[in-house]
């Protein structure tokens, strides 16, 4: 690292009127507005739970609190890895940042896979759909919106991960595009097919049956994973460094935000139903 890196202050920016980096300020403003969005969705769910129409679904007969508690733990741990990724890049450690970003994406995919399993189970086994009960409508809208936020977060983390490989001498656009494609395919297959399938296996389904049923996506996932490992090998000097800490921190703010929204949803939508 040169001497310029030693002078980077990651919490204050003397070049802006507020002393706050503009990217960070923008993200905080967006997250404040997103608070209101989720506030409206959570209160809509609670209003209908407090005044349930006849024939409404009974949540405690539908929920699987063990799986949801596990998902909550996974999301908390992903927040830890995200914080460690920011910590690593603020110290100029690009390799550690990559590892932590991959870990965060992996945990995010575990959470999303749990949600895919949960939604599939609710629709096909418990017969609760988006349109056949008020509870289903508000529940799927709220948790689905949160899941979409998590999925967008995984994509943003993937883009940041690929960006850490951008060569210092410029170029490499096509290679970075292929790298991003590999990230999308690997993690997409993981949370849409692999993780929900493995949860089914934990609950007694056959692993060989799972492999037969989703052979094509799994093959695509393995190809994506091999490409991810091959492209993840060090390719010399990169442009990414401590000066990009604000970019990682900005994505981190978004990721932690989906975590705090889940903290509220877990209590308001799941736990309070068991009283």
């Amino acid at each position, binding site marked *: 690292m040169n001497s310029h890196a030693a002078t980077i202050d*990651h919490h204050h920016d003397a070049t802006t009127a507020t*002393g706050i980096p503009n990217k960070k300020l923008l993200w905080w403003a967006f997250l404040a507005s997103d608070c209101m969005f989720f*506030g409206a969705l959570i209160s809509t769910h609670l*209003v209908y739970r407090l005044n349930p129409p006849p024939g409404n679904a009974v949540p405690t007969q539908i929920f699987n609190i063990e799986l949801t*508690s596990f998902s909550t*733990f996974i999301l908390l741990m992903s*927040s830890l890895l995200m914080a460690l990724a920011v910590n690593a890049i603020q110290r100029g*450690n690009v390799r550690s940042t990559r590892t932590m970003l991959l870990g965060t994406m992996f945990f995010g995919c575990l959470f999303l896979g749990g949600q895919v399993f949960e939604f599939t189970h609710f629709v096909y086994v418990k017969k609760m759909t988006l349109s056949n009960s008020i509870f289903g409508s508000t529940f799927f809208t709220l948790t689905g919106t949160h899941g979409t936020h998590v999925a967008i977060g995984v994509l943003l983390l993937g883009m940041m991960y690929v960006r850490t490989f951008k060569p210092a001498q410029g170029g490499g656009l096509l290679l970075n595009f292929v790298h991003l494609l590999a990230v999308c395919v690997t993690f997409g297959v993981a949370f849409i097919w692999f993780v929900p399938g493995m949860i089914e296996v934990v609950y007694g389904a056959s692993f060989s049956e799972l492999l037969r049923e989703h052979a094509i996506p799994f093959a695509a996932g393995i190809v994506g994973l091999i490409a991810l490992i091959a492209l993840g090998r060090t390719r010399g000097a990169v442009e990414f460094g401590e000066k990009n800490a604000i970019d990682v*921190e900005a994505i981190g703010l978004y990721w932690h935000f989906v975590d*705090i929204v889940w903290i509220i949803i877990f209590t308001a939508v799941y736990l309070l139903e068991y009283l």
Partner: protein
Amino acid sequence: MSAPATTADAGHHEPSKFHFYIQIAMILSVITGVEVVLVYLPIAKWFVVTALCTLSAVKFMFVIFFFMHLRWDKVFCTILFFIGLVLAGGTMWALLHIFGADASKPLSAAMLETAHLAIA
């Protein structure tokens, strides 16, 4: 500035918060475990509801102040975020009270309540 992919810590950067973050994550995990156990304990409902809300708020604050760095950032970031948070909380409070009033209850819910009273 270009840095090699294996840039090592030269000792001139932000002090590492590695162990601190691990401790925060452990506290959050323990709180989550306590929350799950609480709902199965045979204690007063009001106490469980209060405890769950308090524990969630504690988790929320831990994440925003430590993981999201509000503790070390300029106070304006905290103010900006809390403007959204207070507006969201106020909206939730208002909606729950508006729809909690008898005149605002859905007709189907009122009919269900009447039916339950008749059965009792």
